[in-house]
């Protein structure tokens, strides 16, 4: 797992105005925005990192990148963020329109370090909105497909209508990714799995002795997913999760994102499970 190695290309304290160039409605409460920068150097985001997004006049929240700019394609220099409306600021970001300006600070945080899984199987397990920060992992792996073994993507969603990126899931399946989807509550016509996502782990095809797992979702879901992966023999040292705490700066100054010894804006959000597990067991830490 690596820390962010590129220096901030934008001021760490001042949000740079980015223009919303596209807005796609994903579900009833989630949209995916593409942001473009009119001028200035491009910040080098790695999968797993986040930006602090400002809705001018409303506030700022940390949102993981759900798609990285293509460094080789000028026209594809977009920051992609999938935003779920859960509070005042995320609601404002969710409701934004194409052409509006959003402030961006970043990159911040640790990355999934996808490259460290080269030569091994890749197991990606996503719960709910947790698929968004994991999407760049799939992109990175598929961009260098021969370097990886089996690629497994397991997704848990509340209902079929809450599934993110359904078209992309089909394309990934066609590209050789084992895609397993389960919902908590089926809808009429749903022919997929019904149940919790750890139940899909025993039937996924991967070699736990040569796999790296990337897990993101609600903390409870991550804990039980980790347990199921460990039951299959995957060691905690090759299991990475993305943790979340409230953030007021993203840059290591405000003290809000602490989880025990970790500052999640600096030592996370991606954390090795071996380090995270004991911390997650302590109530109100």
């Amino acid at each position: 797992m690596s820390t962010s190695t590129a220096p901030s290309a934008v001021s760490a304290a001042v949000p740079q105005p980015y223009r919303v160039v596209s807005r796609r409605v994903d579900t009833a409460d989630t949209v995916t925005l593409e942001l473009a920068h009119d001028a200035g150097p491009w910040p080098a985001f790695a999968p797993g990192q986040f930006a602090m997004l400002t809705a001018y006049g409303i506030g700022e929240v940390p949102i993981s990148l759900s798609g990285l700019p293509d460094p080789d394609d000028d026209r594809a220099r977009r920051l992609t963020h999938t935003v779920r409306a859960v509070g005042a600021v995320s609601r404002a970001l969710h409701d934004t329109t194409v052409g509006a300006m959003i402030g961006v600070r970043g990159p911040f945080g640790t990355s999934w370090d996808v490259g460290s899984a080269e030569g091994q199987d890749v197991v990606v397990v996503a719960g709910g909105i947790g698929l968004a920060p994991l999407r760049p992992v799939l992109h990175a792996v598929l961009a260098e497909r021969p370097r990886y073994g089996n690629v497994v993507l397991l997704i848990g969603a509340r209902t079929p209508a809450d599934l993110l990126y359904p078209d992309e899931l089909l394309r990934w399946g066609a590209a050789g990714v084992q895609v397993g989807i389960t919902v908590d509550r089926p809808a009429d016509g749903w022919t997929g799995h019904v149940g919790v996502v750890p139940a899909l782990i025993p039937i996924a095809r991967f070699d736990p002795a040569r796999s790296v797992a990337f897990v993101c979702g609600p903390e409870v879901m991550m804990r039980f997913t980790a347990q199921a992966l460990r039951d299959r023999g995957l060691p905690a040292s090759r299991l990475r999760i993305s943790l979340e705490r409230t953030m007021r700066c993203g840059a290591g100054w405000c003290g809000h994102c602490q989880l025990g010894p970790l500052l999640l804006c600096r030592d996370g959000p991606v954390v090795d499970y071996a380090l995270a597990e004991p911390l997650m067991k302590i109530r109100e830490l």
Partner: protein
Amino acid sequence: MMPQTREEVPPPATIEAAALHRLFDVLHARGYTIVGPTARDGAIVVAELDTADELPYGIGVDTEAGRYRLRDRDDRAAFGHSAGPQSWKSVLHPARAPLWSADRSPDGTVVVREPAEQQHRYALLGVRPCDLAAIAILDRILVGGRHPDPVYAGRRDGNLIIAVECTEPGATCFCTSMGTGPHADSGFDLAMTELLDDDGHRFLVRAGTAAGAEVLAELPRRPADEATMTRASSAVADAATRMGRSMPTSGLPDLLTDSRESPHWDDVASRCLTCGNCTMVCPTCFCTTTEDVTDLTGDHAERWRRWDSCFDLDFSYLHGGSVRSSGQARYRQWITHKLGTWHDQFGSSGCVGCGRCIAWCPTGIDITQEVAALSLLRLAAESADGKDDR
């Protein structure tokens, strides 16, 4: 930014107390805004000073757990007082600061402006050794990481630090335990030790940097003689033996990690009001939050930063509730961070032994006593488990 401590400096000098007026003139002539202690509203606070007359001559303090009173001294010592409710973070890391403002034009373009460059260069006069250590800690957190904080960096840039060693520790002081005082040995441009005896009211002054030496060179002074230097160092060494509190620091981070499920937190919670006074007076507590404001048109927005406290219920708000909602979880967070996980995050303890939190806690909670209690409880638990005492 931090004064170097191994530059060529002249030997120590002695100045008369009256030379403090000249010190003010010299600093003003060099463009410094002088910040130092003054008595106001029943406390010795940190404020901008225009003349040396504003120093708290002859004023001492009487402190204990949950208690702080000014008292008249029977001499005219200018620095005869221990730490008051404010620290140098009032200057360097202010309670409110603007971060940026933005204006949206009719075509939707947003222009963001940073605040104007910091105009003041501060001379910090009267920095105690514990507070020197606190400034070094804030430096590491706010400008020593991968993203320097522009507000702190701007205010810290060009500081002239004039330390004053302690010869009279307060009842709640324990700098000796934390290795931060009462002797000042680095991190200053000038260090003064106040002496008041039959030979008069004077200061032994040591320069720590070339910048400090330049200022010293403009003061009426004489080379410090052996007797003065001995008297000063004895007074400081003596102060080290008269600390009001002590803190066993060896193994503290482990003690706090081991104590995460201790029954002691219930005990503290029954006394702690979660008022956050401790975080406000602590010279190393740095947590802040931000507020975005806008005018009625919504076309002008600003972000302001203000102090925040981990005791605030909303500090850990996430997804509809606070992670640390109980008082005991919040007290545990504060003390565990200050004495334990601070090491993991920033490579040192967060506590400098200034004792402010003890004095300013309305219920008199004493961080040194809480550590002692946790230590005893762990010992008892280990004996009960049949393990060897560590």
